[in-house]
Each structure stands twice: as C-alpha cells, then as structure tokens.
C-alpha cells in the first residue's frame, strides 16, 4: 500500500489530505473536512485536475483583454494545450459574462467562458 499526501485546494481552508493507494486504486482519503475534499483527494491521486483562468484579445472593447476561465476543471497535463487554444482566440466587443468563448476546449468537454461583461467602446471616448 502506498500513501500520497496533498493540500486540498477545493476551498481556502487548505486541509492536509492523505490518500491511501493500492496500485492505481484509491482505498481511502483521510484528513478532509468535507465531501469536496474527499473528491479532490481521489481525483488528485489518480488524475489531477485544475480550473484555468486567462485572457483573450478583444477588439473594440473597454479594455484590450477579456478575462476568461474554464467552466469546469480540466486535466492538469493539458493545461498548456488549453492555454495555447485560449491564446489563439480573438473576440469582438460587446461580450456578456458567462458567454461561451471556446466550446469544448481541445475536446476536454469543458467550455471556456467570459468572466465579465465587456462593453463596446468606440474610438475617441
């Protein structure tokens, strides 16, 4: 039997988790204080996942960048591919918060969505 230890990132409490493994299988999660913590521990031991936030270029908006994020978590090993996909995108203002910017980003099943409204601003304002 093998033990892996993690700090839970599901919330700001930062519980210390111990995950008991038998080969590739999780036997038990210890140290969590909520259901989300247990889920995090299991996931982290087998296939770590992360939510990703970044920005895309926006044309004609109040700012040159629109903040976006993945609506759910994606495999940690695919972060750089997701970032590359996000970097390739350019959108036009106006944008509404939660508007889908990239559906099913690189086949992860997760959408990249806008984090805020981005009003349109014409030149000279």
């Amino acid at each position, binding site marked *: 039997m093998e033990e892996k230890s993690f*700090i839970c990132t599901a919330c700001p409490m930062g519980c210390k988790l111990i995950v008991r493994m038998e080969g590739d299988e999780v036997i038990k999660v210890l140290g969590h204080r909520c259901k989300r913590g247990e889920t995090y521990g299991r996931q982290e031991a087998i296939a770590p996942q992360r939510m990703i936030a970044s920005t895309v270029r926006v044309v004609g908006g109040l700012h040159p960048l629109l903040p976006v994020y993945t609506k759910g978590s994606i495999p940690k090993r695919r972060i750089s591919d997701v970032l590359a996909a996000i970097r390739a995108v350019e959108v036009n203002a106006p944008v509404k918060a939660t508007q889908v910017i990239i559906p099913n980003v690189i086949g992860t099943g997760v959408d990249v969505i806008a*984090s805020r409204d981005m009003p349109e601003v014409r030149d000279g304002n």
Partner: protein
Amino acid sequence: MIIKKKYDVVVIGSGPGGLAAAIDAKKGGADDVLVIERDVELGGILLQCIHNGFGLQTFKEDLPGPEYAQRYINEAKSLGISFLLDTMVMDVTSQRKLFLSSRDFGYVEVDAHAIVLAMGCRERTRAQVRLPGYRPNGVFTAGTAQRWVNVEGYMPGNNFVILGSGDIGMIMARRLTFEGAHVERVLEIQSYLSGLSRNYVQCLDDWGIPLQLQHTVKKIIGKDRVEAIEAVAVDNKWNFIPGSEEIIPCDTLLLSVGLIPENELSKKAGVLLDPVTGGPFVDEHFQTNIPGIFAAGNVVHVYDLVDWVSMAGSEAGRSAAEFALAEKARTARYIPLVPGKNVRYIVPHKLDKQALEQGDIHLQMRVTRPIEEDVWLEVHGENNRIVRRSERYVRPGEMVTIVLKPNMHAEVEKAGSLTVDIYPKSEA
C-alpha cells in the same frame, strides 16, 4: 444623470465592500443611494483578479473575480442605485459633506445623511520595505503587474523574482508562467507562508517555482533596468546571515509584501484609526467614531476572502440606511423661518414643529427699515395665518419679538415654512 444635492447614503468605492453596502442600503429603505468610483467602471480590484476561487461561501460556486463582481454590479444596477464613475472624492467632512472632482461633471459638492467608506487598501511599496540599491525600472508591486497582465495587456518583464509569499504574489507567479515568463523564485522573509496554502499548491508547486522561506532581498542590482537581485538568508529576527548572499539574475522584481487600508479620506473626516489594523475603529455595525460615517471591507482591515468583505459591506450598508432614515425623519420635522416683508433676519432660523407642544417659542428679528406708524407683525404659512399682532412702530435698532404659543401647534403643523411680514396697517 442629474446629481442631487443630498443623498440618503453615499458609498465611496465600488469594490466588493462598496457594492454590497450600496445594495443593502437600498434594500434597507434608503431611497437615494450614490456610489462614487474613481475608475471608469464598477468592480474595483476584483476586475484584475481573473483567477477562480471567489464566491464559495456567497454563491456556493467557484468563480473568477470579475464574475463575482459582475453579479453585484448587475444587482446594484437593477435596484436603481446611482453611480458616479471616473470621479475622485477629494474631501469628506464630519458633517458628511463630500467634495468631488468628476470627469463628466467637474467640481461637485454633495451632502449625505450617511456615508460608507469602502476605499479598500493599497499595496506596500519598495519604499515601505526599504530595499537598498539603485532605482532601476523593473521593480513593481504584484498588483500593478496583475493590472498590466490581466487588464491592460502588457508584460512587465521576462525573468522574475518575487519578494513575499502573499496571495497576489503567488497568483502572479502562476499567471506570468502562463504568459510565457520565467519565475525564478519566491522569497519570504518569515519562516512561514504569508498567503493561503492552496495558492502555494496550485501556483508555485504545480509549476516547480521554488519558495525560499527566511530569505529576503538585500540589494537590487542594475541601473537603468533590474539586472539581478542579491538574495540573503535571515535569522529569526530578520538579521542577514553573513555569507548566505546569492546573486539571482532577473529583469523584474515583484513585491508582494502586504496591504495597507487606504484611509486618507477617513482622516479628513476626523475618523479615528486603529494603529494595529490601519483602519477605522468601528462598532458592530461598522460605524466609525463619527456618527453616520460607516466603513466596510479592506478599508477597515485586510481580509483574505472576498465573501467576508461582502458580508461586512452588507452590514455597513444596512446600518447606514437605518441611520439615514432616522436622520431624515428628524430633519423632516424642521421647517424654515423665512424673513418676509421688512424683515432682515429671524432667530431661530428653523424650528422643530414638535417642539411647540413643549412650550412657547420666541422668534426674534430685526427690521430692514423703520416704520413710524402702526404696523402688523404677522407669521404665516403658505396658506394659513399663524398669528398677527400690532406695534405702534418698528425700528432697526430695536429688536422685535413674536411668541409662538402651544395652541398654534395645529396651524404650524400644516405649514412647510413660516414667513414673517412686518408692514404698516395702512397698507393692509
């Protein structure tokens, strides 16, 4: 938008504390609520905090900062709250008068029945942590770098060292890595992490960025641009340990060395500050020592979760509305005394209508010019006469007194103001 002369509640700052305060002031019964924001848009620093992790308590969701702000902005707009953007509050008095400088409206004065201070906090800068060396380009606070990278679209450098393990510093370490920069190291003078452990995990550990505890910057090297920093180990009293120096080449140094509540305006209003927090002394409703001036959020003390800032804002907003309504009810009972024909002034200038139930009220005045014949001294409302008596003459050198009696209370109640006229009987 037309700016009113007087608002029930004025909120200074539209970050999470200010927006929550405005929303709950409005819901708490305040009619006219005004939010003043110096930036061109609502939301405050949340707009540059594009990472997720916000709103787990408030919304039971894991949201990025801008979306957390957006929900409050949408609610505030739907409630009919007024907003004044691109506007600086230059001064606030203990009498709750505000002096503003606005891009669209120029110089403006407004009065408030209650004020909520929600100016947030500022980052500690290089000068405040006394870093020796030249003053080259390439030394930034973590929040400035965050604004550049996440909102304005500039990269502050390529090769970073970060001093301080505060949350913004660690979050920026990851963010800069995402944008293709190299983060050499994070140095922390204390023997423990100053931010949240989860940020260590997902911002530093995930990306192999080393954290050195009990280390600091001894010197910044480079004249026009940062070329390197000299790191050094410290003991428990933060003394440099000789021989532990290390030159770390880099072109940018980010500082994540703490936040200080921003209270320049509070001080102008006479608000007393706690030397420990740097923010106002407050009661359980977040009222400061100045009646009717409340404070909420990072302006009071630095929080680590935005959800708690919103909670504090809500309480301050509710309490400010309650104060404003009580204040309005009290001032609504007052009616002005207006000098009419041949009257230069009247003391008192206003009176509380209910006070007439308690006893006589003496109105004392002087006339503008002498009248050497029989005159009427008359007090009247808009549509009703309250009292009239005669004198054989009036002269500016001799003070005139008219007495309002408790039996006139019913008539006075009908009036919105009282005017005194003094005129010859021959003209009546």
